């Protein structure tokens, strides 16, 4: 069965190493925080100026002066730090934030990502996405394998205006885990019960398929 959004987040959580600083984008990436193993120490950075972000506040404890980049009310963990936007992007641009997880509308086989603009539609802006994808050593995309029209979002070449070039390292979709290699997309894992043919059919780009492709373990 194809994964739901929570399961995509759960699979991505397995990519988090001990002692990593992580920036989670809006949407599915935000859910990743719910699946961090208890023994793995992670700190979440939000680009509006907080390191050591904690869970949402209890009802009645919301503070308008404490929000994340999605403008949601948040809390901080012991050891948190607050700072201005220039310092925040110094952390991002200077590669101190090791992992960025974000959503995408399209990813191409050279690692380009498009996630900010659809020509003809109202453009809301790139926010911090262009800085994040231009900088992090490790960028994981969380998204559905196809769009609402059933068209593949895993492409030879992005059709939409791109957010960054050669930056995506891994993609976790509802159907598969893909790695972006020098030679293109390599299929690493299948969603439980999803057949190879279904993944190939849903993918516009060529897939490198070597040996037996295991099922994800969630």
């Amino acid at each position, binding site marked *: 069965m194809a994964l739901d959004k929570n399961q995509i987040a759960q699979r991505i959580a397995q990519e988090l190493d001990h002692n990593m600083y992580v920036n989670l984008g809006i949407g599915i990436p935000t859910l990743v925080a719910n699946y961090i193993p208890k023994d793995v120490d992670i700190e979440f950075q*939000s*680009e*509006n*100026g*907080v390191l050591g972000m904690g*869970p*949402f*506040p*209890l*009802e*009645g*404890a*919301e*503070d*308008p*002066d*404490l*929000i*994340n*980049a*999605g*403008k*949601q*009310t*948040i809390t901080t963990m012991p050891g948190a730090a*607050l*700072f*201005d*936007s*220039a310092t*925040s*992007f110094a952390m*991002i*641009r200077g590669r101190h934030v090791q992992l960025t997880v974000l959503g995408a509308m399209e990813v191409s086989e050279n690692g*380009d990502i498009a996630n900010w603009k659809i020509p003809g539609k*109202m*453009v*809301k*802006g*790139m*926010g*911090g*996405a*262009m*800085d994040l994808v*231009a*900088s992090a050593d490790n960028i994981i995309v969380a998204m559905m394998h196809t769009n609402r029209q059933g068209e593949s979002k895993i492409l030879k070449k992005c059709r939409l*205006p*791109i*957010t*960054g*070039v050669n930056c995506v390292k891994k993609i976790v979709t509802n159907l598969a885990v893909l790695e972006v290699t020098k030679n293109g997309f390599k299929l690493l894992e299948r969603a439980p019960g999803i057949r190879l043919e279904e993944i190939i059919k849903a993918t516009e780009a060529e897939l490198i398929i070597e040996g037996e492709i295991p099922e994800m373990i969630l």
Partner: protein
Amino acid sequence: MINKVVNNIDSALKGVESKMTFMFGGFGLSGIPENSIAALSKKDIFGLTCISNNAGVDDFGLGLLLQRKQIKKMISSYVGENTEFERQMLSGTLEVDLIPQGSLAERCRAGGAGIPAFFTPAGYGTEVAEGKEVREFNGKPHILESALTADFAFVKAWRGDSAGNLIYKGTARNFNPLMAMAGKITVAEVEELVPAGELDPNQIHTPGIFVQRILQGEKYEKRIEQRTVRPRE
């Protein structure tokens, strides 16, 4: 000590004119200079260029200036939580210059720090890079971005003193310290104004040299845009 205190919003806004460039601190509705914005929205000044990470909502924040069509151009990283904004943008009456958020922050800081331009990797290969110089450093392409400054910068802090020193609270800090640096005239409004000497010099976020006028804000609504809570267990 140089005294920066102004006693009312009229004195704080003295000198604002049509066609000027203004900066506004804040991220979403958090940390925005509420009193300055409200007062500007009552003035007959138009054709403004506004630099702000976001553009407010229909009835709060910069939405108030949009309602009266005071803004000619917005320079932001993320906009459109706001139907009036969308209407003016799609009808072509509002110019919009979208900038990566980190570049926006750094360009404001650069403007205040006397650095006219710097290289950043953000936006390389995208339409943001169009017309900009590209140069490789350590094998990685970067684009040249220029400093931003403003005729007035409007910022909001938690506490401030009569010398213009500011301390922000939580993530309401965001763009405020950077824009405070970049305003020819920086107007700071604060929740609590104290005499010089009451703030610990070691804990100042914005030194008073960057602030030309400081004002005790009359009232703060501090609206929450996305109230998100977890259940009590």
